[in-house]
């Protein structure tokens, strides 16, 4: 089936919109965004969720369904997705700023408070962002979680970072 994703490698606004949580839920606290749109037999996200908020069911080609109310935005699912397709966004803080938490598997890892370039799904720079937190755990098996601070209007546009250090 022809989709923007299968033609270019990035989701169209429409393809993404059906995977986004409601604006109301996003304002309430951190929430996972599961950008999984193809019927691949795969379900580690289901068992990864500590709150039971992700359902794949049978057959395992079904797309994961996120229960917005049950999801706490803890991010446990992020490193478990083999496709690195899950992010946690938070628009609940007072003011303009929100956060995006993403899987990151490059060297070197950014450090907390480091300023990095924020990239969209096409790798285009969309301004700079401060790294709030970098989480590395053995159980994540070399998938680090990086949380960056960006303006709320960009939390569902930014999906990667680029370090600004001299290489």
């Amino acid at each position: 089936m022809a989709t923007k994703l299968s033609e270019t490698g990035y989701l169209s606004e429409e393809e993404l919109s059906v995977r986004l949580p409601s604006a109301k839920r996003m304002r309430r606290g951190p929430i996972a965004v599961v950008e999984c749109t193809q019927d691949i037999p795969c379900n580690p996200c289901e068992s990864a969720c500590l709150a039971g908020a992700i359902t794949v069911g049978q057959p395992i080609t079904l797309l994961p369904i996120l229960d917005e109310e049950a999801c706490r935005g803890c991010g446990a699912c992020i490193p478990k997705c083999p496709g690195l397709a899950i992010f946690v966004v938070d628009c609940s803080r007072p003011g303009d700023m929100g956060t995006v938490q993403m899987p990151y598997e490059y060297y070197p890892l950014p450090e907390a408070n480091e300023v990095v370039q924020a990239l969209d799904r096409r790798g285009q720079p969309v301004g700079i962002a401060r790294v709030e937190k970098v989480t590395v755990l053995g159980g994540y098996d070399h998938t680090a979680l990086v949380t960056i601070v960006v303006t709320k209007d960009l939390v569902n546009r930014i999906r990667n970072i680029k370090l600004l250090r001299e290489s």
Partner: protein
Amino acid sequence: MRVTNHPILGSQQSGSMVTIYLDGDPVPAREGEPIAAALVAAGRLRLRYTVKRHEPRGVFCGIGRCTDCVMTVNGESNVRTCVTQVTPGMNIVSQGKGSTEAAQCER
């Protein structure tokens, strides 16, 4: 170039560094790696020339099937460098262009 820090594989590697010789010049190599890896790491992608038309050739399949990577190793010609491990002091010579095989072909 060598990848010293890898996000998944880490930074530790087994095997100590040794020296092998390519057309007389020293090249650093890691014990246990294939000759081709050491040469590619040193920036040397051209491994030989074809005998008749002197065209450059290098690694193609990387798993010992295509024979594009062959070189003369310690006097033995047509050694597949992508599946042959380095040994300290190993002598590697390019084949083709100026080699005896090329001269025989031109006669």
